């Protein structure tokens, strides 16, 4: 089966300008959330625009269910793909209802008019997102968070397979960021593939399934979020020293990405070889030979995941210096304890991956040296 959305060898550069995107390739499946990350100017928005055909790839293609979008009519394409622009202060005084209704326009030709069924869908969508109370309000009077939700409503009322969002949680406060991200997650669970640009690695790590990281020289890393969002990749792409760790509560553990220091710009940039889409960056870590000792204590509630963890630990076999596994039938959990001696980046990557698994509680303790 072909991927819900795929980009193959996408390249883009402005005529007489620099090459912005080089050989971008990735694929997302139905119901997945993909976060696109990168520093300012790396071409995140350009990439979104290329993906939907607003800009033409200089070479390469975007595929929707395996079909090249270049050959599709606007109507056909945008009745399956919905786009949510950044919520800037709207100058439009349209009512929320009318704004959301516009989402149905891709179903009609230029002379088409919405019918009662379309209006009913608007009412239903607003209710589903908890926006019914503002149906009659003017968009010009909404707060940024409300407007963003209205634009999302406008996208999903078209019943798309894929929804593409340009920085949906920028300019929003904590609560609204969370509302937007949770809304996206629930859409993904209903089978709508969500692709969004974000400035926040932690949002990608916490909420998305896959991540795509662009850097300023046009290189691309794509994979599952915990593989892409690593301290090393953050350093290379953003020029920032980060700490990726977990905040624990008795009930849960939350991944967090903290930027701690900027690194001096390196003029001799073009770093290493630029293989894109490597799925296993952890095995090729070179340079830094300073390893550290760490213990990973893991409680697994889900038997299937216990096997995944074993497989994962096997991959890291070269670093593991000891492990202990113990089922505890009374509470239907397994307890695993691993000691590894590895470079910090490897340890944090592994912790990150383990922490992402459902029903897994874990804690990493580092030695002092």
């Amino acid at each position, binding site marked *: 089966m072909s991927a819900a959305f795929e980009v193959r060898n996408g390249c883009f550069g402005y005529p007489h300008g620099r090459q912005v995107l080089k050989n971008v390739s990735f694929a997302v499946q139905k119901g997945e959330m993909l976060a696109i990350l990168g520093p300012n100017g790396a071409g995140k928005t350009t990439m979104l625009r290329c993906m939907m055909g607003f800009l033409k790839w200089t070479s390469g293609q975007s595929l929707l269910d395996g079909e090249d979008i270049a050959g599709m009519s*606007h*109507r056909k394409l945008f009745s399956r793909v919905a786009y949510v622009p950044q919520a800037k202060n709207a*100058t*439009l005084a*349209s009512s929320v209802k009318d704004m959301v209704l516009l989402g149905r326009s891709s179903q009609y030709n*230029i*002379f088409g008019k919405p019918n009662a069924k379309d209006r009913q869908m608007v009412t239903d969508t607003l209710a589903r997102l908890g926006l019914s109370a503002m149906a009659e309000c*003017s968009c010009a009077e909404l707060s940024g968070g409300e407007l963003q939700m209205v634009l999302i409503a406008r996208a999903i009322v078209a019943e798309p397979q894929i929804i593409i969002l340009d920085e949906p949680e920028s300019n929003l406060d904590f609560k609204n960021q969370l509302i937007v991200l949770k809304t996206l997650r629930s859409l993904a669970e209903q089978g709508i593939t969500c692709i969004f640009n974000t400035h926040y690695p932690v949002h990608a790590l916490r909420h998305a399934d896959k991540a795509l990281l662009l850097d300023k020289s046009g290189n691309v890393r794509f994979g599952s979020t915990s593989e892409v969002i690593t301290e090393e990749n953050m350093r290379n792409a953003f020029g920032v020293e980060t700490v990726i760790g977990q905040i624990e509560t008795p009930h849960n553990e939350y991944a967090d990405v903290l930027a701690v220091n900027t690194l001096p710009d390196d003029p001799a940039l073009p770093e290493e070889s630029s293989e894109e889409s490597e799925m296993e960056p952890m095995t090729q870590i070179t340079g830094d030979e300073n390893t550290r000792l760490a213990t990973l204590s893991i409680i697994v509630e889900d038997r299937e995941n216990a096997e995944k963890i074993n497989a994962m630990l096997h991959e890291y076999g070269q670093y593991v210096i000891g492990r202990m596994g113990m089922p505890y039938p009374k509470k239907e959990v397994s307890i695993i304890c691993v000691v590894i001696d590895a470079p910090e980046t490897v340890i944090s990557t592994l912790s990150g991956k383990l922490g992402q698994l459902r029903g897994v509680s874990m804690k990493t303790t580092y030695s002092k040296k």
Partner: protein
Amino acid sequence: MGRRKFRLDVTSTRTRRILFYLTLILLPLLAGVICLCIGRYTTTAGETLAALGRILTQGVEQGDNLAKIIRDMRLPRIVLAVLVGAGLSVAGLAFQSLFANPMASPDTLGVAAGASFGAVLALLFDAGTLATQFVALLMGFVAVGLTLSIGKGKGSERSLTSMILGGMVISSLFSALISLVKLVADTDSKLPAITYWLMGSLDSATWYTVAFALPFIAGGILVLYAIRWRLNILPMSEDEIQASGSDVNTLRIITALASTMITAACVSTCGQVGWVGLLIPHICRMALGSDNMVLVPASVSVGAVFMILVDTAARSLSPSEIPVSVLTAIIGAPVFIGLLRKTGGWSL
């Protein structure tokens, strides 16, 4: 939410919609019949209707002065007022959507200046009414063509800003040319005619001029009526327009052409009538909200009524006719300021 503004609700139920459209049709008819009775030769409504009946059933007989006045003078003038009022209002509405700018008016692309130059040039050479109208229409299109070719950037991309700037440049170019024509025109015979024409008036209305303007104005209105839902998308960003499933350039060009056709035909028939294209759409917005599905028919009707009333005032307030654009400005400005202060704010 408590942020709901008072708006006339005309769409929520079937009954409301029917009433709304009925009102839109009846208002201009009513205004038309009332204004048919007004003029130097005062008549009662009964006499006017009787005369109308005679015109329709048996034609105008010799010596039936009332029927003759109504058929040859008042009726074509009222029909022209309907066309011009409705046309300029809808064209203004469409341009405001197109440029996402509440201040845009029907001559943003330079069509009015171009058409005026054409008319002035024709008057300089003593052309007849129909010839003047034709040259004006032609120059209106030439002006918009020039504006669009200036505004055309690399490839097929047309940026709105460069279109607006192009319109300003072309407008001022043609204004300069008009001044040049006025400068060389004979001060005794031609300059007054030119000046009077530029002030705008519907007194050239005959069934011929109406027949000339009708296809352009009615055609343009029909096109804009047909795409009225898309006018809601038009003020948004290019990507959003594209993502609504319609091609940006096609939509913009259809809108610009339809509005230009209307405006060129209006200006070439009755000179520059200012304010209507700005005033009427905003009055409608203030009363009805921002949905172009409702605003397009409302602007047609309200624009027509407004123009019938203003033109009737222009021809009957004083012994000599007052130029209609003078009246639209004198009536329009204070009404508009009042409305603005009451409802607060410009928005689309």
